[in-house]
């Protein structure tokens, strides 16, 4: 019974996505290029900063709680508010500020997720392994390299895939800033109604599922 309800809810979640393709022909071009550029910049920034933050958040330091709250802030703001704030900033800085603003904001949305994934992956490394490495005479740098790096790289890749997919799909800020990315252009009346958006996202999610396996039981 519960399985049936869950299946129905899942169906309800997924049904609008293919329907979007019915809305019109597939048209790539400028919106696709814009989306990819913004998403690449956002992915790069989010992965770098998010990984560093995820590694740092494992330690204890003064102001850790405040840092955590600030890092999570972009996810907890109603999406229209950063849109309006960046529109005001773009007006003040000149209209060229819209594009970097969009990429920056997408990076800030994804960075906490990257940090979460990285921290989680590193926390799973058994502390006993470090003691064993030290007992065998391995210097701490070597132990860190051999024990942490194999966990770090897949986590970074998963975070990057998530950041990319998030940036390609985000629409609120793109619409307000007037950026012709895929979601903005795929609305009725946009330049490319019914676009190649869904396949892109599918690729991102598949990559995520393959790289991460987030529900693997604890080792």
């Amino acid at each position, binding site marked *: 019974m519960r399985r049936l309800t869950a299946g129905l809810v899942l169906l309800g979640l997924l049904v609008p996505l293919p329907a979007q393709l019915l809305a019109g022909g597939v048209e790539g071009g400028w919106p696709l290029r814009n989306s990819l550029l913004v998403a690449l910049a956002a992915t790069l920034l989010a992965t770098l900063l998010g990984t560093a933050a995820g590694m740092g958040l494992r330690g204890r*330091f003064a102001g850790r709680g405040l840092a955590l709250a600030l890092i999570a802030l972009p996810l907890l703001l109603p999406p229209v508010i950063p849109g309006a704030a960046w529109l005001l900033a773009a007006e003040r800085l000149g209209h060229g500020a819209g594009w970097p603003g969009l990429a920056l*904001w997408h990076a*800030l949305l994804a960075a906490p997720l990257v940090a979460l994934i990285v921290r989680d992956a590193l926390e799973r490394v058994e502390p006993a392994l470090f003691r064993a490495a030290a007992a065998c005479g391995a210097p701490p740098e070597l132990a860190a390299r051999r024990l942490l790096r194999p966990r770090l790289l897949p986590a970074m890749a998963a975070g990057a895939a998530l950041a990319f997919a998030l940036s390609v799909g985000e629409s609120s800020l793109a619409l307000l800033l007037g950026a012709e990315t895929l*979601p903005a252009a795929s609305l009725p009346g946009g330049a490319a109604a019914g676009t190649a958006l869904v396949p892109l*996202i599918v690729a991102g*999610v598949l990559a995520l599922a393959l790289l991460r396996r987030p529900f693997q039981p604890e080792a």
Partner: protein
Amino acid sequence: MRPDPLRAALLVTPLVLLVLAAAVAPLGALLWRGVAETEVAPALPRTLRMLRHWDGKGLPDDMAFEALAADLAALRAAGGTGSQAMARAAGRLGADVPALREVLPGTAGRAAETRTTRATSILVADAAWGEAESWAALRRAGGAASGFHLLAAIGLRQTAGGGLEDSAAGPHARALLLRGIGAALLAVLASLPLAWPLARWMADAAPRRAALLAGLVLLPLLAGEAARAAGWSVLAGSGPGVALAALVLGAVPLMALPVALCLRRAGPGLARAAAAHGMSPLGVFRRVHWPLARPGLAAGCALVFPQALGSFVGPGLLDPDMPWAAGALAAAARAGEWGQAGALTAWLLLPVLLAALLLLRLWRARA
């Protein structure tokens, strides 16, 4: 092996600095515009300087009338830039006291044609200058900051005596805000029962299937609001019901994923043990699953409420006639009405902050 404090702080610093520069600073600037007064001060500097000495009782003295005449004459003499400044000032004053919208340009024209002392020419040109209300509105709008936009966003205005009264658009403004907050609350409450079976399924499934399910649930979330809204508009047309349903369904993944992660991490052992000892399914739900899922539920609510409160793409597409708070904010920002946009931002941030504090307490109480 945890990083030492200095290293940890240095690793976190770049992201924190970027958040401060790219999120906190623009947000602060927007909020400041919600209280800043920028329209009247550039147009009527002399008048405002004179009004500083006015005690607010009765009419200001002759010097204020003289200064107003001088300011208006200067604006007329300045040509195009002057008339623009006057239009902005008149717009701002008219938003407070509707009659004043016409008074300022009218006075400027008629006072220039009257042959008396400048102070008298103002009074002759328009009777509005014989009322303390007009002067009080002028003084309030001429300061560096005021609560005018904040009050207007909840449909109130300040009277000359300092009290508060309903503005002309009062009921409409309050309905706008309440509708937005109500819809967000509804999204939170309605997504809970929808997300629960989905989260349990993800939590209980075998690893490979759980990853696939999580990917499928993540899919509509990552596809974005615009894609979902476009799909629903093809399938179901538009209307308030469709907009609300799309809002609720859009919130389900955000609620289901944290809950599923939480339950998955706790493992099936406790629930199995409770069932094996004869606890009823309802009891297992109440005593085992619900407490285990509480941090996930708090995280889900903390994500869903602001997302639903600030979504304007979907409602704008699926129900264009119904103004929502987020839609009004987006429209104000597009039109460059920064006073209104800043005030709406403040009123939308308030429930988000309250909800975040409440959920933080819930979370801490368990952990």
